[in-house]
């Protein structure tokens, strides 16, 4: 045991000396592993970042809300099947809320109608395109995490009366009024004037892709009056406990079927969507990134491993006489095997460490360039890439190390 330990220490020393003696060669050989480790780390960082960002955005949008819609959010390749369905009416919301109130121990809390469009918003010379115009009732505050940083949300009276008031998102307020307060200013939505009574707290972006702050919320009757009364409506229903999502769905389905007087033999002519549905789409994206990343990583590590195997073979050849001498002095097969395995592993470890440093710097740079994209450089990734490096080293070293350990001492000593 003690001898094994001494041989191990000796092997690491030899490996370090070998690398020091052949710096250029070692560096070039480690390049494959460096690239592999950079790939593995960046891929992991990307997947981590997407997950974190998604969860954060989900919390903002509300992952405990069911959306009653005419169409499903996913699988829209057969949209014609949904086009002629009976529309979802904003009046459903009140009826659903009544039904919820009448049900003891309901899994649902409250239903709120919403209608939405993309329109431009102007104030004076400034304008913002493609703003998400959301028409809803004052109850909307009960189902979302929206919060006013200044002013207030519209009240029940304004909501029912269809007052020409609005609450603007951070991006809209910033674009139209810059540093000045937006409160009590007039904005033109598609040419119709609304008074700003509140600005919303900044929500950030969804995965850094689009802003959640490019929004204007107005009372539903005003939306119907000035924009399309015919545009599709959704009813958003807040769930009491998001761990019982399935029960909540069943209950809501029942309520809507009754509302629409659907006979039992007919299938649902509406869809209940939830943000969680995005999750499965996202999982698909993550899996694609993972597979592509794994392929690239695997390929570069494979190339790196071949390079290291090659250089270890060269090293064995160059030092055949040294191997003979060591054997003459009492080195056993295992000793020689260990020595060359450790040499290839040390090379991979150094490559892995350099790769990690590069990956870290690249993440750092990316974070600086795209501050909104969530980037996570985790300790788990560091451990994972070290493990991958060591495995690469062992795999690529085993063949040359084996051949070195099998060398006949007489032949090895005579080798010039």
């Amino acid at each position, binding site marked *: 045991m*003690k*001898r094994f330990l*001494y*041989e191990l220490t*000796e092997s690491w020393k030899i490996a370090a*000396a070998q690398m020091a*003696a052949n710096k250029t060669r070692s560096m070039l050989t480690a390049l494959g592993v460096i690239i592999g480790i950079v790939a593995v780390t960046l891929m992991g960082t990307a997947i981590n970042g997407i997950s974190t960002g998604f969860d954060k955005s989900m919390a903002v949008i509300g992952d405990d809300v069911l959306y009653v819609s005419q169409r499903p959010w996913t699988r829209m390749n057969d949209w014609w099947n949904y086009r002629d369905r009976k529309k979802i009416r904003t009046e459903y919301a009140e009826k659903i809320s009544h039904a919820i109130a009448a049900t003891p121990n309901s899994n649902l809390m409250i239903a709120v109608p919403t209608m939405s469009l993309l329109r431009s918003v102007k104030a004076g010379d400034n304008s913002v395109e493609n703003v998400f115009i959301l028409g809803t009732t004052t109850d909307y505050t009960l189902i979302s995490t929206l919060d006013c940083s200044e002013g207030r949300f519209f009240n029940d009276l304004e909501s029912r009366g269809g007052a020409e008031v609005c609450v603007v998102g951070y991006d809209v307020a910033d674009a139209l009024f810059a540093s000045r307060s937006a409160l009590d200013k007039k904005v033109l939505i598609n040419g119709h004037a609304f008074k700003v009574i509140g600005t919303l707290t900044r929500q950030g972006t969804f995965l850094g892709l689009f802003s959640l702050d490019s929004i204007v919320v107005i009372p539903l009757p005003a939306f119907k009056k000035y924009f399309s009364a015919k545009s599709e409506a959704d009813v958003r229903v807040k769930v009491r406990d998001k761990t019982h999502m399935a029960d909540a769905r069943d209950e809501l389905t029942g309520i809507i079927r009754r509302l629409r007087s659907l006979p039992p033999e007919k299938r649902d002519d509406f869809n209940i969507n939830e943000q969680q549905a995005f999750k499965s789409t996202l999982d698909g994206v993550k899996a694609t990134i993972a597979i592509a990343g794994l392929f690239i990583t695997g390929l570069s590590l494979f190339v790196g491993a071949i390079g290291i195997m090659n250089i270890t073979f060269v090293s064995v050849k160059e030092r055949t*006489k*040294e191997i*003979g*001498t*060591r*054997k*003459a*002095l*009492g*080195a*056993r*097969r*295992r*000793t020689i095997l260990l020595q060359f395995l450790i040499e290839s592993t040390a090379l991979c470890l150094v490559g892995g460490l350099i790769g990690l440093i590069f990956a870290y710097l690249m993440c750092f740079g990316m974070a600086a360039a795209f501050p909104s994209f969530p980037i996570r450089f985790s300790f788990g990734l560091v451990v994972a890439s070290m493990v991958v490096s060591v495995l690469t080293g062992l795999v690529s070293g085993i063949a040359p190390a084996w051949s070195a350990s099998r060398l*006949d*001492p*007489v032949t090895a*000593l005579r080798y010039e």
Partner: protein
Amino acid sequence: MNPPATRSPGPLVIDIEDITKEYVMGEEIIHALRGVTLQIRRNEYLAIMGPSGSGKSTLMNMLGCLDTPSSGRYEFNGKNVSEMDGDELAAIRNREIGFVFQTFNLLPRSTSLRNVELPLIYAGIDPEEREERATQALVDVGLGDRLTHRPNELSGGQRQRVAIARALVNNPSIVLADEPTGNLDSKTGEEIMTLFESLYQQGNTVILVTHEADVARHARRSVHLRDGVVESDELATAPPSPAPLAVALDSLGKS
């Protein structure tokens, strides 16, 4: 200076009986040894001689446990070597045999001390004891002031001294030297031979493998091989005189 004495040999170390060795080279079978019988006792000073192709190197590989015979019996300190596997042979080489090579075979990037420590690492000796014993071995061969030098910072003679220190550091039963002066000038060669003489006088068993009569002359017994068999095995008639060395030094001084 008194002529060096011949010491009386001790118990049997090497007992070889009728060993043969065949190699297959291409389609030809080479009979390197055709039945060699040889006994070597502790504290003998023996030279194995013969022209190239005589089987001298093959016999040396056998004696050094680097190779096993095709047939015949080889006992080393009473242990049957002929049937040992690679790792058992490695253990014998590590503990019982000190090798000195013609080309020194030092690790080029390691200091003298680390070179001499190497057999002790394979023997599983503690680092402290390793350093102590390696230092002592280097002091014994007169290199106490060259511990941290690398081979390329040493002269040929000094390199061979490091190799001898390495051969002796694990207190082997035999020192096996293969043409130890082959890569040295004659003056340095004589110095190395003087060192072997003193090793012998200290009680070591020394086996020289050489084709030079001048080198073999230092030994007390010489075994001549020819065509894979022992042609002659004789004790030196008179102990070698130090005269040739003195004459050589003298002539150097005059010129």
